């Protein structure tokens, strides 16, 4: 490991934003579950690293129907929340990894070539959540889906969503030790009554399933329609063929739960 790495440990959100500046050359260590192994194995060799452990970015704030989750909130702190986010969080990794992994890290997770990652992304997309981040050009608030499309050099501060009327989460569960979720579907009946669906493991990052949403009143038809919204691939944990078979099932089950 490079002795030269400059390690910063800001002690407030403002200090974190200041230390991050415009990003670029800064590696962010949230819980460490993604970045530390990459540093250990020499895949990433940071010049400057920002450790957010003491930056005061954690916490779940529920005021009225608005839920705001700090970037450094652990995944396990979400597991008691309503669906889809709670069960989605509870489905991730194991209890130790959930204690350590953070919301911000999960939103920034890039799928390695072997399997999907970023389990929470789908739940946030379904919830219509927005991400507040900082970096070049200052603070930005945008829908999660937009953030996922353009998240280089951003420091996540928090995520906000309106409590939905109902939510559901279904994942393909192949029981083994260290769960990457090969495929999962999150759904929410939002405050305005509309239904939003999103899938994890069906494209490089989580994707909305607008075609399925359009058929939401017919869960079977919606399941089939969902296949038009995704880019399924073969990887180490599942074939595209199998994902194609299971995605409609998960969509159907989610819609049945949403009622």
């Amino acid at each position, binding site marked *: *490991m*490079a002795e030269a790495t400059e390690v910063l440990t800001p002690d407030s959100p403002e200090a974190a934003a200041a230390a991050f500046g415009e990003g670029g050359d800064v590696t962010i260590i949230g819980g460490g579950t993604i970045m530390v192994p990459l540093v250990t*194995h*020499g895949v990433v060799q940071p010049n400057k690293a920002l450790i957010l452990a003491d930056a005061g970015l954690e916490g779940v704030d529920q005021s009225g129907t608005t839920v705001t989750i700090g970037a450094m909130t652990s995944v396990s702190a979400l597991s008691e929340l309503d669906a889809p986010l709670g069960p989605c969080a509870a489905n991730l990794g194991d209890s130790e990894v959930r204690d350590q992994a953070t919301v911000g890290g999960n939103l920034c997770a890039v799928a390695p070539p072997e399997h999907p990652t970023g389990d929470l992304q789908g739940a946030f997309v379904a919830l219509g959540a927005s991400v507040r981040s900082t970096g070049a050009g200052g603070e930005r608030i945008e829908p999660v889906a937009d953030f996922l499309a353009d998240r280089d050099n951003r420091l996540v501060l928090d995520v906000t969503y309106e409590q939905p009327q109902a939510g559901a989460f279904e994942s393909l569960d192949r029981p083994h030790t260290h769960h990457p979720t090969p495929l999962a579907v999150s759904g929410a009946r939002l405050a305005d009554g509309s239904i939003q669906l999103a899938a994890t493991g069906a494209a490089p990052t989580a994707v909305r399933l607008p075609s399925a949403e359009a058929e939401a009143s017919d869960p079977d038809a919606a399941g089939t329609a969902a296949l038009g919204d995704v880019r399924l691939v073969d990887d180490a944990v599942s074939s595209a063929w199998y994902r194609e078979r299971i995605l409609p099932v998960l969509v159907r089950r989610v819609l049945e739960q949403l009622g």
Partner: protein
Amino acid sequence: MKAVGARLPRYDGVGHVTGQTTYVDDFRVHGMLWAKALRSPVHHAAITKLDTSRAEAVPGVHAVVTHTDVPQLEYGHLSGLGIPADEPLLAKDEVRYMGQPIALVAAEDLEAATAGVAAIEIEYEERPTLWDVREAFDSDAAVVHRWGNWYPHFEDEMDRRQIRKGDIQKAFEDADHIIQGVYRPAAIEHVPMETQVSMVVPESDGRLTIHSCTQAMYFSLGVISAHLQVPLNKLKIVGGTVGGGFGGKVDTASETITALAAMKAGRPVKWRWTREEEFLASSTRAPWHMEIIDAVTSDGWILGRKMLTLHDSGAYARFSPYGLTKHSFHHTGAYTIPHLHFDGYVVFTNRVPTTAMRGFGVTSVSFAVETHMSRIVDELGLDPYEFRLKNANRIHDTSPNRISYTDPSTVDVLQSIAGATGHDLAPAYAAATREPREGEWLPDHLVDQISTEGH
């Protein structure tokens, strides 16, 4: 108190639960270097250039070891049995699988070793590959091994392992049913929790102390001494405490190369494989392809078995010829079958070489035979226990190699399971024993299968 039969605690149990048990990676020695390997990034290629001079100049690098440093480059796992070797310790002119070690860099720390690996100049000219063992015999198949695509066996000009017993064509003629199926168990990883690791210390008396996770200290001692061309008393393996093996640590995968680096650097060197290397570059259990054709009677006797086995050895032979022979000896499973015709081939592909793993050679045949048995039961409407009990090995039955069984327990284990799961056996089957066949248990086709010779 009696020691044998007692539920005594593990000899090393307290060490395990306190973290005091010392595995190879836990030894500490002053001045130790860390090693990192250059491994092939391609499945099959000629090496057209290999230049380590820039790597040797990387700050912190103390030694770079390649094939030119190995006194005896090729020494086979079965060389002790007089079987020719085929695998270089470090790749020389060619690589035949992705992950094959080409060079080892020993440096002050892993970062410098990794930089050293990156500085090695190497060029490849890729060659065609072979993956499907079934296609290895086709005239247009890529040739992937200097011995051809399948192992020549080096005995009696046989290019395969054969078993012949009785008259298989007569069995097919006499059979009421001829049932054929194909069975293909996968390659799996050993996944010991401790990855491959060794640490070698050059001693002041010229000896090498080799801290090793080998499952087989003396086997490894022989392999290392052969490659290094030194007598056994120049080497001391320190080991015996292994963080899981399952067959994957018989191969002596890291010790010799680490020893060469330690000798060249004149410093202790440790080479610990990452989990990624363990998954991708360490040997696996072999994938197998098996085709069984059984001659059976409507009342559930197996008269004969014709079987083809293709054993996916990967890029080199390692223990595969041994595994195939063992497989052939057990291809009737826990049953006595009079007419046998078995052909088995060790087939080379561009996979990571496969090797021994728990149940070596037999795990595959157990799957094939027993699944086939279940199919016969289903097709003929038989009882799964009774069909097996009928054909079960009995005392004085003979094996495929014509060896008499002295203490078979097929009957006992089946009856126990029937009892434990509440499966009612017909009275004759409930009363069956492993004692020598007689009466209804000795049909005409088994009369000449009884022998008291051997054990």
